[in-house]
């Protein structure tokens, strides 16, 4: 029996580590998606931002964020001993380190979302300073309200794997940044018309999307937190299937809508649609039926096309569509829980939505504003024209290819 407990602990820890590694792999997913959706002259910079923000998220969450969110200890507390585990009667069933590992890659995900929305005009180091504050304080504080056992969890707020806590949170911080930054030079004309600025590399954008899809099995699948009995294993499998179906339906819905609305099957919309389907189902991938998950994902795919078009009309310039994919679809995901989960209440969901969005948006706005009035957050017009690769990085992304 004791050996069985030990083995079950090992299995749950392993499950957590594997799922965490899949989520970590979302980092190149975001990097490739964003690198594909910006223009060539800002590609090295966005790659640098993605490497650095992932690293910063790991460091700040280790030093302070994990403690703020879960009271997990600065630099982590002690690991579970064998005695602890055996004495716990099943309450302690995976390694504390594996929990940190799984959680830390979520912080990085939230931060990755921001990077795409502010692309092509932000100063590298101001962005990285924002990343420090976001991953050390802004994200963990709101995370503590729900996953850390705070007031949102008591208010009955349901957000299984983080449509709101991770995705909408990242989008809210991004929105604050985009508002203070303003649109890219030349994006909107005085007559209100919009200049498209096509992304430089569609294969990278597609690769990034597929990697994110793959990593999402870890994101949602790992959020069940336990695997080692029949019910839990069935739950994880259910989460895998629902997650996959929502993504598939989001992609198809967005593709068809873009064909109908724009005349052609815009690949970038199909990619955003798949991601929107994933974000939409993230708040509750377990309790819904497959049919419900498919519908939720499909609606996410439709919403994202509308949201991208609308934000552009509002001159809210988001080169990769991050605010729509993670924010608008994240809100939809939080509300869709009301369809699939008996535990969720309208009040609970709206409270969570409002609290997370409000806190993140306001706190981010303040931090972005401080940066704006001290170091500055925006490249000069000449720097922006030349591209942030030449300004901040000094290394062109594709030095041999003529643009």
């Amino acid at each position: 029996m004791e050996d069985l407990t030990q083995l079950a602990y090992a299995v749950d820890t392993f499950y957590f580590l594997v799922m965490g590694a899949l989520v970590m792999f979302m980092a190149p997913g975001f990097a490739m998606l964003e690198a594909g959706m910006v223009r060539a002259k800002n590609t090295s910079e966005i790659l640098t931002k993605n490497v650095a923000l992932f690293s910063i998220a790991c460091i700040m969450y280790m030093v302070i964020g994990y403690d703020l969110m879960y009271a997990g200890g600065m630099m982590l507390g002690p690991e579970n001993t064998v005695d602890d585990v055996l004495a716990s009667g099943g309450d302690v069933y995976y390694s504390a380190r594996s929990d940190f590992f799984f959680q830390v890659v979520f912080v990085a995900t939230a931060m990755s979302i921001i990077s795409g929305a502010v692309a092509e005009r932000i100063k590298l180091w101001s962005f990285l300073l924002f990343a420090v504050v976001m991953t050390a304080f802004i994200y963990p504080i709101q995370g503590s309200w729900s996953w850390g056992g705070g007031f949102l969890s008591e208010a009955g707020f349901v957000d299984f794997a983080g449509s709101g806590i991770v995705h909408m949170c990242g989008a809210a911080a991004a929105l604050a940044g985009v508002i203070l930054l303003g649109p890219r030079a030349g994006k909107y004309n005085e007559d209100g018309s919009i200049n498209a600025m096509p992304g430089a590399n569609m294969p990278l954008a597609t690769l990034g999307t597929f990697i994110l899809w793959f990593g999402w099995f870890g994101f949602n699948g790992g959020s069940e937190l336990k695997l080692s009995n029949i019910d839990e294993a069935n739950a994880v499998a259910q989460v895998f299937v629902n997650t996959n179906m929502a993504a598939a339906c989001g992609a198809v819905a967005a593709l068809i809508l873009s064909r109908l609305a724009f005349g052609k099957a815009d690949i970038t919309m199909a990619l955003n649609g798949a991601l929107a389907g994933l974000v939409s189902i993230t708040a509750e991938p377990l309790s819904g039926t497959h049919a419900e998950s498919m519908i939720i994902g499909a609606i996410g795919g439709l919403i994202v096309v509308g949201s991208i078009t609308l934000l552009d009309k509002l001159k809210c310039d988001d080169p990769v569509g991050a605010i729509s994919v993670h924010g608008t679809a994240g809100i939809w995901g939080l509300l869709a829980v009301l369809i699939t989960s008996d535990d969720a209440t309208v009040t609970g969901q709206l409270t969570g939505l409002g609290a997370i969005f409000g806190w993140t948006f306001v706190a981010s706005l303040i931090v972005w504003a401080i940066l704006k009035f001290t170091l500055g957050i925006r490249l000069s017009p000449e720097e922006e024209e030349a591209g942030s690769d030449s300004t901040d990085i000094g290394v062109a992304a594709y030095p041999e290819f003529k643009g």
Partner: protein
Amino acid sequence: MKLITAVIKPFKLDDLREALQEIGVQGMTVTEVRGFGRQKGHTELYRGAEYVVDFLPKTKVEIAVDDSLMDLAIETISQAAKTDKVGDGKIFVTTLDEVVRIRTGETGASAV
């Protein structure tokens, strides 16, 4: 000696090269360019936003020829590049004061 510059539709390049070789043209220099003329660009949508493609991909071929070959060359180019659709392109002719073959130092007609 004349420098004949033809701006043509890219997919016509191979036909043009063959036709010119047949009449004895020994060299040419090709550049990818973008052009704008009677043939107008078109509007594309990207993520719901319009963008106008003003310039269309064209291929520029430069051929230095002896005066004697000029008319035939122009004729040949016109034939080879023609599709009878708008955007077929144009031919420009300028006078060359001098031509030098770098390897041998030859100049003038024998260098063409």
